[in-house]
């Protein structure tokens, strides 16, 4: 079992979160949508597995490198 921290790629804002603690995700599933530089972009699961932690909620401001999720696969 490997744990992976998914981090924010850049400074922005969380628009909506699609998963919660315990959700099963497949690789490339949309986990949340962020807005940066006036563009909406999805954060996709880097691997299949289970969401172990969700650190963010809709409307939250995030900085580059901030942890968003922990995936266990």
């Amino acid at each position, binding site marked *: 079992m490997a744990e992976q921290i998914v981090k924010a*790629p*850049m400074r922005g804002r969380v628009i909506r979160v699609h998963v919660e603690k315990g959700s099963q995700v497949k690789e490339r599933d949309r986990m949340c949508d962020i807005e*940066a*530089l006036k563009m909406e972009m999805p954060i*996709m699961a*880097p691997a299949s597995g289970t969401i172990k932690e969700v650190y963010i909620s809709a409307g939250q401001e995030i900085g580059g490198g901030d942890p968003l999720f922990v995936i266990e696969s």
Partner: protein
Amino acid sequence: MLGFPQTGLADLTLGHVLLICVGLTFIYLAIVKDFEPYELLPIGMGLILANLPGTGLLVQPQEVGGEFGTAGLLGILIEFGLLRYTVLPLLIFVGLGALTDFAPLIARPRLFLLGAAAQVGIIIAFLGALALGHFGIAEFGLEEAAAIAIIGGADGPTTIYVTARLAPEMMGITAVAAYSYMAMVAIIQPPIIRALTSKREREIYMEPELREVSKTEEILFPIVCLILIILLVPRSAPIVGMFMFGNLLRVSGAVERLSDTAQNAFINSITILLMLSIGASMPAELVMRPETLMVLALGLIAFACGTAGGVLMGKLMMLVSKEPFNPMIGACGVSAVPMSARVVQRMGQEANPNNFLLMNAMGPNVAGVVGSAVIAGILLSVLG
């Protein structure tokens, strides 16, 4: 003397009807499809107003011996905003500069090269237009060729400015071509980008965030650029000067009210006047000629070649760069800001879901605006 009131119906030609339909289409695209609405809606309205006969709206003061009373509103806007003084597109640049964030470019100045490379589309379209003129297929002289070529810069106001100066009868058509192709960036660019890059190249990961850019750098950038560029290409001063001035308003931090006005009320007001005038500069008498279709075709070729040129330069930079470099961002050297950058961001994530190229893509994107302004200056100094 009392005349019998005339309806416009008798003077309505097929050309008028066609262009009214085009205007209606633009309004439809703007409202329903969200296709560049800030440009296409007023342009569409201007088209309709210009092609309803007998309105008197298009009478320019210079046509009636400077008698403003008998001139039409649109004629006045066209003559004083575009033809005689060409102020409207230049004032737009103040607003655009105030809206532009140069930080991604300041952080990686080499991205200027991509903004330059993408202007190759302008050169190709220029030669193409000259060729058509040379072989007698179209009446394209040097001035017309330059006006057509600048469409490849994918910059609406630059296109309007150059055309107003060099080939005013084509003003509306080149502007519409430029804005239409900017709206269709998401359709035009991806096939070209895919054709010129391999899947592996598209997957190349670049650090999403660039180095912090200091306030001092942000303030010095427009000032230094302005002075250097204008010394080298003086005729680019109207565009580059207004663009950098607007940017200085934004980054100085000392004139928040001016910056806010430039980004909002000012640019919106000028947009209303400019786009309405552009639409109105296309009555059927000027537009219904075979040259119009050639302009549209050449403009598209210019745009496509600009994309290709940028991507190829991107590949070159990928080969020589020590850090990872995704060649797709070269396509953003066409100054369709921020549409091009968004296209590349999307394509980047399709290839590699963790790749966020947006900030890197914005660098060449804003550099492209400067690049096309410089080319415009060069064309005007040679031909103007």
